[in-house]
């Protein structure tokens, strides 16, 4: 333990909304800035400021990893397993090695070595090479001859659970308890392909069910969804005598740097990771990945820079996915709605990997004294899953939020009224109220009440997501003698606009316009920033940015105070000037203050302190804030009962993220969350052929995504939720906005047709089947 740093007491605005805020008193570190007033009193924070890199993005000038080129760049390609499960008996690379363009070649599977020579899914890396052109690499790859000894395989969740199913893993190959970008509990028992359970027990569920007036049971199923980032996973690795430089499309520059240092035995100081434009990750670009490691190996071998960029098929089969799940929920309640017991049993599959749980929605969204959950991972011969926008809680909410609606119907209670009784969150209560008003919830009809072929329905569902924070997050702010200002961190902008909010936060402190702040991020040469996953980027990096800017300002005020012959604390920064409080005519331009600096630059580096009042939980570099993030979404649908086509006409998303820093960017992110949820609910599904183990839709036309014509009217209502927890009091939005959409649509579909569909996706076939309109055997 380090000695506690000096603290001081401050009073913060506290509460929901812009008006009638209360106050809360907190101890804060002495070197952090005073409380930030509510957004209505600020110049830049909370305003819809345009993206700092918008111009670069609309002109095509921004450099994505696939655009990076270096002198002597080689092109890497990965040979992938054609078999879902096999032992590789031999690999003949002699022809490929003689190809005139080939400069480096590496085997991933080493025949004779049981662990590496066993491939467990179609698409598993077998070998990789680097050549002087992409075409040469492709040609050479086809010259590699692989002999497989096929093994029995299983690619479907239910079949893999059977005791007689072919075994995917043995005791040596089974993953030890870490899934890409998402924690999986370690050291759980393995029986056949079934690993677990990870359990949670609270109270006495048997007793709870005995006390119930009503017990509801339901089974819910979700499919595999793939990330479909438009920019492929890509890396340019440059192994040199001075160290390793890597350009990579990543959600975590600093984390990749650590992975590389460890994997290649390099000191951190010799590893540099860079990303500028980053074309979407959604969880799948959280780590270095097998392709990244191979590019570095090839670069080291060839002594030349190597680029590997996955093609669309590789993206679909080996860049991660959202695991499929099956869950059974049992909920006991009294007639007044109060919950007496919740039991959950889930089986999910992340292919050959772990992390297919259904999150904490069942045990944490509603008040219930007796909870008993058991979550299992099931291995199948398919590409490894990984975190995807709201991992766990997206399938978790799919089950729980339908079950709660079903319970409400059994209790003859309005679903909103039931939630008012069992949901302890004051934030979601307000969100329900706002949303219900927007959609005129009172006019909602009984299930299936519409006459005619096209039936309309209205439904809602809630979101639950921990407010994550990365402690290991630092930011530097520099003011230069000419009055220019830089903000620097290795944090990456994956499209959420974190660079823009950094500029806003620094500009607010220094009394400047955000355009005046030069944003330098996405490079591990700068102070280590947080990852962009777990909806934690803004929460982690904007408080140290404000603290660093404030510390820089204190230095400037000291210089200006001497010149103006006042005390430093009599001064403030506003509208490009340093002025005397209460005497705005007395002061100097910001750049005249920086001109007084003894050196070219005054700089401060600040790191993320603990939330004021402490965290709920801390795990290494990561922590969870006291208050969860909420979000309530309402969906209006039209279901054609002859074609089975579901059309989502309107979504009202009422969301919270602490203090909103840039409402326009947040609205964009919520649009994305809603659309990814809608697309998941209606269209997306990885389909694997049972006979061959191959994905049959590894592309973007048969793997269907929602486009603009499937986009409903989306209304975003954003709460301001002040809690005085950090220098900015800002938290994340990406994942909470994706969790409630699919169950809200399902509840609306039920309201439309009066039949509940508990399996995803809600295809026309699924709807017609539920309506009993499919011929037997069809």
């Amino acid at each position, binding site marked *: 333990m380090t000695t506690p740093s000096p603290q001081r007491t401050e009073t913060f605005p506290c509460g929901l909304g812009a008006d009638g805020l209360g106050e809360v008193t907190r101890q804060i570190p002495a070197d952090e800035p005073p409380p930030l007033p509510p957004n209505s009193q600020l110049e830049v924070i909370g305003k819809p400021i345009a993206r700092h890199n*918008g111009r670069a993005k609309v002109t095509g000038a921004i450099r994505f990893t696939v655009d990076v080129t270096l002198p002597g760049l080689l092109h890497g390609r990965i040979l992938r397993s054609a078999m879902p499960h096999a032992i590789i008996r031999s690999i003949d690379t002699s022809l490929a090695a003689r190809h005139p363009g080939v400069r480096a070649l590496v085997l991933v599977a080493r025949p004779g070595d049981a662990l590496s020579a066993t491939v467990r899914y179609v698409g598993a890396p077998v070998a990789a090479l680097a050549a002087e052109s992409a075409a040469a690499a492709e040609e050479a790859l086809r010259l590699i001859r692989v002999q497989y000894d096929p093994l029995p395989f299983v690619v479907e969740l239910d079949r893999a659970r059977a005791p007689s199913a072919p075994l995917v893993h043995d005791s040596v190959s089974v993953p030890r308890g870490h899934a890409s970008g998402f924690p999986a509990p370690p050291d759980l028992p393995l029986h056949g392909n079934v690993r677990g359970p990870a359990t949670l027990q609270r109270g006495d569920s048997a007793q709870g069910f005995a006390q119930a007036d009503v017990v509801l049971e339901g089974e819910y199923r979700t499919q595999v969804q793939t990330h479909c980032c438009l920019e492929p996973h890509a890396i340019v690795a440059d192994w040199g005598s001075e160290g390793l430089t890597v350009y990579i499309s990543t959600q975590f520059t600093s984390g990749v740097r650590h992975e590389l240092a460890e994997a290649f035995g390099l000191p951190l100081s010799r590893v540099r990771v860079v990303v500028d434009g980053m074309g*979407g990750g959604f969880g799948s670009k959280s780590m270095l990945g097998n392709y990244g490691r191979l590019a570095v190996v090839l670069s080291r071998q060839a002594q030349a820079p190597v680029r590997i960029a996955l093609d669309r098929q590789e993206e679909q089969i080996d860049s991660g996915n959202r695991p499929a799940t099956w869950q059974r929920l049992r909920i006991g309640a009294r007639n007044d709605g109060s919950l007496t017991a919740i039991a959950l049993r889930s089986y999910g599959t992340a292919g050959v990997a772990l992390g297919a749980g259904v999150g904490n929605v069942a045990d944490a969204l509603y008040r219930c004294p007796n909870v008993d959950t058991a979550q299992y991972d099931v291995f199948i011969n398919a590409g490894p899953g990984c975190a995807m926008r709201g991992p766990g809680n997206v399938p978790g909410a799919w089950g729980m939020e339908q079950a709660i609606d079903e319970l409400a119907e059994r209790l003859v209670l309005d679903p909103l009224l039931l939630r008012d009784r069992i949901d302890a969150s004051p934030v979601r209560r307000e969100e329900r109220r706002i949303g219900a008003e927007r959609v005129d919830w009172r006019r909602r009809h009984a299930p299936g009440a519409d006459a005619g072929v096209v039936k309309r329905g209205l439904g809602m569902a809630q979101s639950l997501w921990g407010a994550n924070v990365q402690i290991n997050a630092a930011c530097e702010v520099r003011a230069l003698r000419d009055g220019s200002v830089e903000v620097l961190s290795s944090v990456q902008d994956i499209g*959420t606009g974190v660079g823009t909010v950094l500029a806003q936060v620094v500009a607010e402190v220094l009394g400047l316009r955000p355009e005046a702040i030069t944003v330098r991020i996405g490079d591990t040469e700068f102070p280590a920033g947080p990852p962009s996953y777990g909806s934690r980027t803004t929460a982690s990096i904007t408080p140290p940015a404000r603290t660093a800017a404030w510390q820089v300002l204190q230095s400037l005020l000291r210089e200006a105070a001497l010149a103006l012959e006042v005390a430093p604390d009599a001064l403030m920064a506003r509208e490009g000037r340093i002025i005397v409080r209460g005497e705005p005519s007395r002061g100097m331009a910001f750049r005249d203050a920086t001109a007084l600096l003894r050196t070219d630059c005054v700089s401060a580096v600040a790191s993320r302190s603990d939330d004021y009042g402490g965290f709920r939980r801390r795990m290494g570099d990561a922590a969870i804030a006291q208050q969860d993030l909420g979000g309530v979404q309402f969906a209006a649908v039209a279901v054609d009962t002859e074609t089975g086509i579901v059309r989502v006409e309107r979504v009202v998303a009422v969301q919270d993220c602490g203090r909103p820093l840039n409402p326009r960017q947040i609205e964009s*992110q919520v649009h994305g969350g809603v659309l990814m949820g809608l697309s998941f609910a209606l269209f997306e599904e990885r389909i694997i052929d049972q006979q061959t183990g191959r994905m049959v839709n590894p592309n973007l*036309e048969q793997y269907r995504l929602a486009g603009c014509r499937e986009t409903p009217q989306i209304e975003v209502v954003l709460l301001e939720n002040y809690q005085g927890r950090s220098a900015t009091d800002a938290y994340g939005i990406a994942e909470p906005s994706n969790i409630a959409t699919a169950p809200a649509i399902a509840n609306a579909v039920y309201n439309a047709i009066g039949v509940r569909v508990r399996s995803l996706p809600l295809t026309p076939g699924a709807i017609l089947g539920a309506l009993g309109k499919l011929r037997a055997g069809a």
Partner: protein
Amino acid sequence: MRARISRRSFLHGSALTTAAATSAAAAIAGAAAAAVSGRPVTEQGREAVRLGPEAVRISLTINGSARPVSVEPRTTLAEALRDALGLTGTKIACDRGACSACTVWLDGQPICSCMVLAIEIGARHVTTIEGLASAAGLHPVQTAFIEHDALQCGFCTPGMLMSCAALLERMPAPDAQDVERAISGHLCRCGCYPHVVAATLEAAAVRRKRS
């Protein structure tokens, strides 16, 4: 006269002329090229001009300038723009015409540059995202995309912009359905469609006011 070879018919033709395919493989192995016996024809029945398999020198008119470039016959326009000419603003996301990320203009018409070969462009004018702004500044659609935050990660943005700008060229006063139709082939995983539609409608209004 221009030989019309689509990527599909080209591949189809290659499959029929096995000798040509063999020669490619032989060339790969570094051996002498075998004699070619197949005589491919175009969809219109004309005898095709034989090019390749080695790189050929062509000239493309891109953003108003003639750009000599050396490409293999199999090189798509998207690859030629990005790899041979360094115009990396054009993005490849699916490489098979499913997502429209690679949209450029060919004689003012938006097309998927991953679905056309560089050698079949001929004298037609190619406009890429790098050529959308003029000396006077950004195209109104570009400005509106920034103001409406019609982009997040930005990877689909260049293609999306080319389709929206082309719409305004042919339809100065579109409504929301017109914009949706114009971008219906584009995929945006970040979910920017609502802001794209709003931005394009505003850009149209700005342009009408200016003219």
